[in-house]
């Protein structure tokens, strides 16, 4: 337990020593951070912010215009659009985080092996990463989900698989860089197992850049999930999700455009926030860019 805590302290120390402050001193980076923070707060306190339950159906009031009673109007079942958007932020934030975490787990597993094994085996893994990367991800996800039926678990697995090669490539490259370092050789010399070397000695030293890549990927995954939901293949109803709401709004675009407008604004808010913040992170923390600064 104390070891884990130590790791946590080291992590916090590393963050404090790093250039993270520079991220916030950039106006766009700060703006991105604030947009995300606001969104996270909304997701956390959704039940106190939303005036209605997201699933309360009120047929008498269907497709009602935005008013003081329903700030952003109601949808085709009379549900309050504002409340559904507020609750939708939960799915919008958790699905990408789970997806990317799953992708990182896959990447750590395959990336470490690819980097630590012989060049021939490593190249085979590279080819595998290339193959997965060159699938038209959206079309494949569309088909598989259409066949299995939309459910969150499948969604996370599929998108995670399509995203992991980029991280795995990074981990492999970093592993190649550190595997000849003295501390790895020393660990080998005292007889540490391959597993221990990979996870105890190499992993902590190669994982950093992954987080930057992951931060840059969050808006991509948010968009991906929203696009699938828009096609009716993402987050299954009645869970409030932005993509599904935009789809409903699209069906009623001539008589009730508010669903598309407010749903769109919220979605852009999220992707813009994460894009701005991710880029500020990359510009200030990625050691590979330091040369150019």
């Amino acid at each position, binding site marked *: 337990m104390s070891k884990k805590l130590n790791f946590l302290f080291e992590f916090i120390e590393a963050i404090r020593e790093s250039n993270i402050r520079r991220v916030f001193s950039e106006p766009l980076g700060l703006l991105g951070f604030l947009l995300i923070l606001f969104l996270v707060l909304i997701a956390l306190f959704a039940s106190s912010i939303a005036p209605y339950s997201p699933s309360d159906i009120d047929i008498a009031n269907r497709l009602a215009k935005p008013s003081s009673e329903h700030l952003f109007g109601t949808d085709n079942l009379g549900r309050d659009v504002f409340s559904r958007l507020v609750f939708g932020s939960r799915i919008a934030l958790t699905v990408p985080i789970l997806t990317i975490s799953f992708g990182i787990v896959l990447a750590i597993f395959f990336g470490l092996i690819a980097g630590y094994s012989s060049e021939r085996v490593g190249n085979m893994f590279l080819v595998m990463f290339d*193959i997965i990367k060159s699938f*038209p991800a*959206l*079309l494949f996800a569309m*088909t598989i989900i259409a*066949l299995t039926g939309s459910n969150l678990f499948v969604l996370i697995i599929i998108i995670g698989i399509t995203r992991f090669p980029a991280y795995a490539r990074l981990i492999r490259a970093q592993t190649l860089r550190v595997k000849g370092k003295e501390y790895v050789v020393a660990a080998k010399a005292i007889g540490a197992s391959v597993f221990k070397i990979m996870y105890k000695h190499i992993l902590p030293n190669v994982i950093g850049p992954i987080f930057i890549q992951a931060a840059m990927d969050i*808006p991509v995954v948010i968009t991906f999930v929203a696009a699938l939901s828009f096609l009716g293949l993402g987050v299954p109803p009645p869970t409030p999700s932005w993509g599904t709401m935009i789809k409903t709004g699209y069906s009623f675009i001539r008589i009730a455009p508010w669903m*598309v407008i407010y749903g769109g604004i919220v979605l852009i808010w999220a992707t813009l926030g994460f894009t701005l913040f991710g880029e500020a992170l990359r510009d200030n923390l990625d050691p590979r860019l330091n040369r150019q600064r």
Partner: protein
Amino acid sequence: MFKYITRRLIVTLITVLGATIILFIIIQFLPGDPATVILGPRATPEIIEEVRAKMWLDRPVHIQLVRFLYNIVRGDLGTDVLNYMPVSTLVFNALPYTIVLAITSILIASVVGIPLGTYAAAYKNSLPDKITGLLSISMIAIPSFLAGVLFLLFFSVYLDWFPAMGGGKEGDILSQIWHLILPASSLALGWIGYIARIMRASVLEEMTEDYVRTARSKGLTLRKVIFKHVLRGALIPVIAVIGVGFGNLLGGAVITEIIFHRPGLGTLIYNAIQSRNYPIVQGGLIIAVLLYSLVNLLADLSYGFIDPRVRSD
């Protein structure tokens, strides 16, 4: 260079083959027997047995796979289960619409993005540069399907400037162009921002070259230096990026087609999914993977041709 091309060719081949086999496996795991799907619930067991034999469904799986691959190589993608049309005909009728949409988008994105990026670089750190930067990143952050829906709402529902659906009248070029503008621009939006940023960075890098200083000290105006010298060098990375992006654009085109009810590969596959017409889904996806891999291959090769460092990766 030869080794690089061979490696990329092999990867492309394996990708297409791998994707095809995965597709075959997915279809194997489908709920319901294809023969039953075709014949409907009221078919007698004898008829189902007959159709199964005709479709080779009674043979072992590996034999089915070999036959499946053999048929694809011959250009036979199977038959549509509802209208008995050859899938290849359906796919190749739809394909030009998708390709035209993707090419038009990349053209729009280049025509807007390249001057925007050049301008921003020429007046680096000025107010217009900063506005362009913010605009670019905002355009990148807007998902293309959302851009499609919003464009539809403003330009077609509110302003009624452009038609909302379809691909235009057959044989009427003007009507087809008219129907192309909204989908192509919505698909291009993110790419405008992307190209503008890369162009800006590329021009800035090129401006640090010695020959630019020489030209400037010779008394050439900034405008002349940029147009006569810098642009040529700065365009190379942008062209490479456009090549790589074209594959992704095809993916985005799928949803754009669905939003604007445009004929094309995306609409074909999507509608086939809705009606459980699996041979079309399968055939459409195979062609999509093929197209996607070929475009990526071409882009990678041209990239390797332009930038020798790529080859040694």
